[in-house]
């Protein structure tokens, strides 16, 4: 028999364009305090493992976990770094609990993007030093390449991408955690400055600061900690080729494979029927469409049309990014996926307030690690345990 794993607590500072008054340590302490309060645990004795999800160059440190344990309550306890998005951290917590050696794991991810003065240069520093970096330029041209190929292969329209932006920015207006809520129109997006053809300024998720912490627990202790455990039904993650030269530019292969794994673990055969809502990567507007298809939430080439028809609105047949997504909440570096998982937990608990999607039982969170990577992760969460379905 396998152990089941649930999210039993969450904490979030909320996302803001800048947070000049607080250090990264202080925002982490705030989110952690909230999460442990929500879960009703004392991190100094009740948490078996702490995971921080961080990349050194986002932080400006080498070996960032040096600076982490104190503000999470992890001194002389078990903590480590997963150098990936928080959703990989959630998958790691899931594995740890399933080994049977641990009952509780806290996962932390944050962004202090406003501390970075040379963001584009740091993204460029992730490019292959021999083949790609010498070409120069702002590395977001890679998103332009991918978008163009995706639109070409699927026939999705430029307007459909703009629809994603308008929808997500609007959704964010009813999310107190969101940094970039706005009432903008499809035309506003289309008329915004063209930066990396066919990508315009408003197609790009703006950065935000923020910290999120989730507390996960085994079925053994979840019931004691909360009346509303949100079960992790499946996780999946994958890496396609790191070479820009050999990519399938029209698809998101890592998302396809990560989803396949997550559905298998969760026992989901018909995603369109069994997933009630999803928070998916929308770092660039077209990614939401591409990922919708990669996740098998619609047929390939169909995402643009569905979006223009309103199916992905909060009251549509498949609500996508009700939180406002990265376009509306803000792109929070390695916290982007955890931000999405957090929204799904709130929705499944029925605590999403004005943006509550009615009768949601099972939700999906998905994230991509951004340019220039081809890595992504998927988690499937439900307010019904495996035993209950």
């Amino acid at each position, binding site marked *: 028999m396998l152990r089941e794993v649930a999210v039993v607590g969450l904490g979030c500072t909320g996302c803001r364009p800048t947070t000049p008054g607080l250090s990264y340590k202080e925002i982490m302490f705030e989110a952690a*305090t909230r999460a442990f309060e929500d879960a009703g645990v004392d991190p100094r004795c009740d948490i078996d493992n702490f995971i921080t999800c961080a990349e050194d160059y986002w932080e*400006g440190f080498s070996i960032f976990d040096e600076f982490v344990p104190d503000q999470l309550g992890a001194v002389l306890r078990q903590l480590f770094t997963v150098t990936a998005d928080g959703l990989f951290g959630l998958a790691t917590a899931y594995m740890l609990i399933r080994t049977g050696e641990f009952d509780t794991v806290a996962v932390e991810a944050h962004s202090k993007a406003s501390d970075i003065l040379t963001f584009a240069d740091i993204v460029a520093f992730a490019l292959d030093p021999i083949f790609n970096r010498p070409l120069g330029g702002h590395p977001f041209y890679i998103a332009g390449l991918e978008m163009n190929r995706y639109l070409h292969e699927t026939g999705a329209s430029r307007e459909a991408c703009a629809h994603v932006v308008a929808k997500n920015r609007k959704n964010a207006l009813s999310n107190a955690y969101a940094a970039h809520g706005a009432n903008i129109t499809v035309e506003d997006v289309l008329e915004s400055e063209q930066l990396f053809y066919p990508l315009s300024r408003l197609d790009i998720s703006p950065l935000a600061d923020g910290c999120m912490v989730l507390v996960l627990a085994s079925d053994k202790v979840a019931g004691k900690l909360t009346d509303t455990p949100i079960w992790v039904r499946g996780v999946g993650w994958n890496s396609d080729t790191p070479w820009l030269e050999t990519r399938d530019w029209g698809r998101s292969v890592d998302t396809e494979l990560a989803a396949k794994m997550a559905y298998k673990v969760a026992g989901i055969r018909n995603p369109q029927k069994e997933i009630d809502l999803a928070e998916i990567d929308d770092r660039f507007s077209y990614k939401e469409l591409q990922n919708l298809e990669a996740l098998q939430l619609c047929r390939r080439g169909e995402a643009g049309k569905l979006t223009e028809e309103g199916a992905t609105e909060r009251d549509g047949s498949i609500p996508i990014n009700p939180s406002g997504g990265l376009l509306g909440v803000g792109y929070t570096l390695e916290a982007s996926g955890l931000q999405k998982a957090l929204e799904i937990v709130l929705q499944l608990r029925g605590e999403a307030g004005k943006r509550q999607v009615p009768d949601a039982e099972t939700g999906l969170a998905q994230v991509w690690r951004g340019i220039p990577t081809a890595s992504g992760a998927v988690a499937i969460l439900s307010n019904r345990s495996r035993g209950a379905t």
Partner: protein
Amino acid sequence: MSAKIKKYAGERIKTADLRAGKVPVVRWRPKVRYAWSTGIAMSRFLKELKNGKIIARKCHKCNRIVVPPRMYCEMCFRPTDEWVYVKDSGIINTYSISYLAADATRTDKPTVVAVIEIDGASKGIGIVHIIGEAKPKDVTFGMKVKAVWKPPKERTGAITDIKYFKPVEV
């Protein structure tokens, strides 16, 4: 396995050949710059340094007085409660004498680096700094030292507002 393997992969390059440009390389100097928000605790700490003072935080649960200050107690996992001025003197907990620069080149004059347990903070609570006005061979464990500050006009709100710590004549 180890015993059965005949040849291990890896082709050695001589450092001299590398330096002489005999090995193809691609060079890159990353443009990475940051402006870290110092936050509530360290902003105050730095402001006090500018005033020629060292400030700490106290936790009312474990009663520790800690420097560098933080707004949370890492042992009790709760917010710390109180600002407390501590002295600008202390004793050497441990030290080393460096002949090495950050890039591993050698320095002309040795630098004495020490962890200084600060007077007025809890036992064992120290900061790391440079020891000056002392011959390296005269520095000892438990030695009493005191901060030597830059003149007020030259202070910028940085740990280097303290030029170094020097031995206190007893």
